[in-house]
């Protein structure tokens, strides 16, 4: 499942409000994944069974797993499997929403099944066989099916999320793109791609978010917005754009080049062309990725 989009899906379908979603995103780090949500996600139990065990727990001081086995909802093997499975971080968002009472287990189950069937994505990662489906989903999500260079944008955004997961973390929620012509920057770096596909790209965020972003990227704890923090955002965009260009070179024989990244703090991005603004919310704040439309 292309999981980072699940939070946004919940928002679009009206399962949660944006205030609830933002609060849950921020609260993920204090959230502990529970067996009920995990069992629903893995398809071992449905929401009614989970509720039934929760009710039983109120008068029977036993653990969730033991009660679920007693009631015949789980086998011992399934329980072991759940306990030993790697617990994916993205489920923490759903758990946080359930814990806060913004969404019931039943709504979580319903939304997750709908989402899986709508996009037909069942894997937790960006495995190759999922690639085409992910491209289609990105085109659908960002409503870019009919624009010029649609597949190049979809591939760009797919690689962007891949790199964000790889270098920053997977605990984010993307929001719908907006088209803008003028963008006032805060802490910002731009990088121009050149060649047959030549959009300007940019990454912008506020100073506190940047310190957290840089700490994750560099794997060290920064406390002030110094030159290393500034270098981190430049490194990230250069690395991401580099990997995109390498990917195109290998897969489409399209040879693009990059200009050096340019710092553009407290400035204004404007030009003749529109930008797609892609906001992405992490627990530490929202980062805005911008990519210029080429037509």
């Amino acid at each position, binding site marked *: 499942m292309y999981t980072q989009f699940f939070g946004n899906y919940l928002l679009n379908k009206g399962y949660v409000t944006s205030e609830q979603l933002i609060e849950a995103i921020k609260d993920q780090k204090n959230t502990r994944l529970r067996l009920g949500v995990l069992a629903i996600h893995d398809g071992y139990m449905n929401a009614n069974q989970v509720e039934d065990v929760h009710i039983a727990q109120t008068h029977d001081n036993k653990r969730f797993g033991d009660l679920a086995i007693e009631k015949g909802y789980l086998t011992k093997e399934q329980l072991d499997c759940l306990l030993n499975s790697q617990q994916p971080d993205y489920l923490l968002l759903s758990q946080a929403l359930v814990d806060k009472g913004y969404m019931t287990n039943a709504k979580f189950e319903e939304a997750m099944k709908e989402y899986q069937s709508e996009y037909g994505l069942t894997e937790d990662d960006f495995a190759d066989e999922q690639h085409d489906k992910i491209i289609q989903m990105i085109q659908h999500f960002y409503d870019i099916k009919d624009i010029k260079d649609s597949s190049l944008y979809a591939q760009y955004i797919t690689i962007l999320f891949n790199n964000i997961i790889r270098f920053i973390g997977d605990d984010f929620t993307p929001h719908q793109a907006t088209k803008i012509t003028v963008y006032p920057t805060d802490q910002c770096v731009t990088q121009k791609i050149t060649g047959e596909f030549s959009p300007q790209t940019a990454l912008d965020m506020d100073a506190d978010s940047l310190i957290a972003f840089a700490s994750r990227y560099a794997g060290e704890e920064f406390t002030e917005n110094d030159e290393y923090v500034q270098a981190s955002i430049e*490194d990230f965009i*250069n*690395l991401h754009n*580099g990997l995109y*260009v390498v990917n195109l*070179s290998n897969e489409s024989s399209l040879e693009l*080049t*990059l200009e*050096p990244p340019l710092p553009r703090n407290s400035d204004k991005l404007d030009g003749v062309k529109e930008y797609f603004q892609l906001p992405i919310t992490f627990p530490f704040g929202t980062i805005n990725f911008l990519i210029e439309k080429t037509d």
Partner: protein
Amino acid sequence: MTIDSLVILICDDSILARRQLKNHLNSLGCNTIIEAKEGNAAVELYKKEHPDIVFLDIVMPIKDGIQATMEIIDFDKDAYIVMASSVGTQENLREVLSLGAKDFIQKPLKTQQVDEIISKFLKGGL
């Protein structure tokens, strides 16, 4: 030649990337590391200090790594240049290797790749 006698030039426009590579080289026992922020400075430093190994980024302001490779090789055809770049496209790879660069590391750098470069140099560069 021993690891502690190596002179290594790192040329990258990112202060973070330079520091990370330098820290790793220090941990291997390389003590003499000189740094440049862009190609022109790298060429000047090369001529002055004759480093044993050069780690060179490609996308940089003022003078990029490809032009710098050309000028360093022009000055010393045996220069031991290792490209370290995020833009390992087929075209870049072909170009820098044909200019005489010895190796190409795709960023993000893995410390193991750096270790291999150093040990390869020490074995062959006696």
